[in-house]
């Protein structure tokens, strides 16, 4: 588009230039020849008056000698009859016929015709007719044309190159910005600032983008910091509460108030769990989460965890089918946390009476654990989103409590073990699965994928 505009503008200017140049040349030439005509007219006045054709002829001959580009000249009397003439073009040429009776300067077919009145102070006594061939004009025209073409060609080429380079320069920077924005959007990694060394509007855009990212990072940091601080603050008085409740419980061993204490204790436990979740999240975010790896019997862990979970949900049976029969190298406490979380979710989201089935299978170098419940299942399309921070299933009844952090923490733990965790929707419920390498996360082995749940 730019190139076209440039070319158009250039074309207009070139044409204008050529036209004016030619026009100027013509004007100058006409002036020159007019001057010559004036002098000759002056000199031949008397010849006319005294009818001295020879003298007039001689004057014209002189003119031709001095100005070779005069092809034909003639002195005409008052009746426009030829009094004297010099030149090849006879009086029968078209031009002569056309212009002999006019007065002035005329351009026709590369020839300049000048006709001037010869007067004797007051009266017209004749006229002089000059026909000049404009050799230069044709040459000038073609020269100017070629010059204009070449210059225009160069200019168009230059415009093309410049616009091309500029576009690339602008586009590439903009595209880099768009790419970065997309990456940030996709990964949530706000450290991806874009480097730029310019001073134009695009640089402004990029620097605003970078400062925006900075702001976001700062906000995130503050948020995490706050969570950490808040969790600590919450935990302290809670510990006290639990302490006092413990004392009360041991005192109220056989009293009816014991129930109240139990409930309070239960709630304190729940609160403690929530806070611990928050703390875990903070640890994960600030990179403080670490694994304490030991070797332990996997089945034993599962059984223990199921037993604890069963105690809290009397109306939903939890069944342990298919055992792995393996020793596993992992962080026992954390894996227990994962299992407990999955079981608690299963209990929360399954219907009364339907059993929750847990299986552990050893295949290859991994153990695959499945916790299958019978309930509403996971909403279609949310299979990945549920592992995100603060995710709570929509449309779920209010009584199911929690910050929505459980699965996020589970995923982090499993990923640190170089395993996978994912969910599979079944007709009658959902199955949560995770895969753990038996040899542990620090075992040097080829893994196809350490990505999070699919």
């Amino acid at each position, binding site marked *: 588009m730019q190139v076209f505009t440039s070319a158009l503008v250039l074309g207009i200017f070139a044409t204008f230039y050529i036209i004016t140049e030619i026009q100027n040349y013509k004007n100058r030439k006409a002036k020159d020849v007019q001057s010559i005509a004036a002098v000759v007219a002056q000199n031949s006045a*008397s*010849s006319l*008056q005294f009818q001295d054709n020879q003298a007039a002829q001689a004057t014209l001959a002189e003119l031709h000698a001095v100005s070779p580009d005069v092809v034909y000249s003639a002195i005409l009397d*008052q009746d426009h009859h030829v009094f004297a003439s010099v030149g090849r073009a006879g009086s029968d040429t078209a031009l002569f016929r056309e212009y002999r009776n006019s007065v002035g300067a005329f351009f026709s077919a590369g020839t300049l015709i000048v006709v001037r009145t010869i007067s004797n102070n007051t009266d017209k*006594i004749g006229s002089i007719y000059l026909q000049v061939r404009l050799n230069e004009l044709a040459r000038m025209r073609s020269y100017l044309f070629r010059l204009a073409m070449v210059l225009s060609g160069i200019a168009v080429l230059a415009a093309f190159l410049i616009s091309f380079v500029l576009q690339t320069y602008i586009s590439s920077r903009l595209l880099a910005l768009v790419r970065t924005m997309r990456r940030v959007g996709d990964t949530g990694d706000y450290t991806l600032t874009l480097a730029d060394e310019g001073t134009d509007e695009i640089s402004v855009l990029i620097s605003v983008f970078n400062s925006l990212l900075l702001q976001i990072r700062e906000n995130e940091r503050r948020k995490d910091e706050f969570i950490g601080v808040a969790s600590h603050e919450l935990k302290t008085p809670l510990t006290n509460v639990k302490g006092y409740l413990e004392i009360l419980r041991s005192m109220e061993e056989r009293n009816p108030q014991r129930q109240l204490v139990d409930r309070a204790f239960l709630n304190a436990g729940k609160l403690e769990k929530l806070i611990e979740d928050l703390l875990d999240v903070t640890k994960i975010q600030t990179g403080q989460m670490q694994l304490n790896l030991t070797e332990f019997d996997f089945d034993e862990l599962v059984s223990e965890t199921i037993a604890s979970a069963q105690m809290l949900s009397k109306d939903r049976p939890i069944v342990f089918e298919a055992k792995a029969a393996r020793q596993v190298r992992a962080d026992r406490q954390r894996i227990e946390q994962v299992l407990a979380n999955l079981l608690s979710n299963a209990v929360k989201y399954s219907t009364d009476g339907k059993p929750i089935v847990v299986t552990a299978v050893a295949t290859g170098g991994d153990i695959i654990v499945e916790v299958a419940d019978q309930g509403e299942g996971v909403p279609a399309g949310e299979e990945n989103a549920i592992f995100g921070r603060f995710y709570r299933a929509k449309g779920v009844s209010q009584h199911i409590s929690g910050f929505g952090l459980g699965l996020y923490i589970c995923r982090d733990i499993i990923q640190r073990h170089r395993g996978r965790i994912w969910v599979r929707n079944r007709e009658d419920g959902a199955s949560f699965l995770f895969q753990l390498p038996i040899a542990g996360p620090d075992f040097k082995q080829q893994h196809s994928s350490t990505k999070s749940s699919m």
Partner: protein
Amino acid sequence: MKKLVAYAIIIVALLTGFGIPAAAQGEDLETNLKAAFLYNFTKYIDWQLGPDDAQFVIGVVGMSEVERALEQIARTSTVNGRRIVVRHIDRLEEIGGCQLLFIARDRRAGLREILSKVNRGEIAVAEENGAAREGAGFNFVLAGEKLKFEANMRALSSSGLKVSSQLLKLAIIVKK
């Protein structure tokens, strides 16, 4: 012959330019031409007329149709803004006071005598062979069929009047 006809047309054109009616066509072509030339001469000579000169006098010595032609011209034309008066001269004594003097062939007096009466500020024009050599300022001659004129530089310079080169270049220069 053809040329003369052509010139006749030219003369008529010239003369009609000066306001001479077409009736003059009937007169002798040569006469008219001479009259026209005489008038044209006046245009190429600086007469140095003063405020006292109310008119321009052309004297004609002898009998000639040129006189009539001159009178025709005099009716409508001027010299340097002055009216032209054509004076017929019979006697030598009357010669003085004419700026331009036309000496006709048909006369009684001798050329030398007439020329001796020509004063400063006056120019004589003759129409016979050898007149220029004798001392006339201009002399009409026929070159073939064309009317031309001789000019005597000495006579012209002794008149004290400046004659344009444009005129002189057309003349046949005669030196004495």
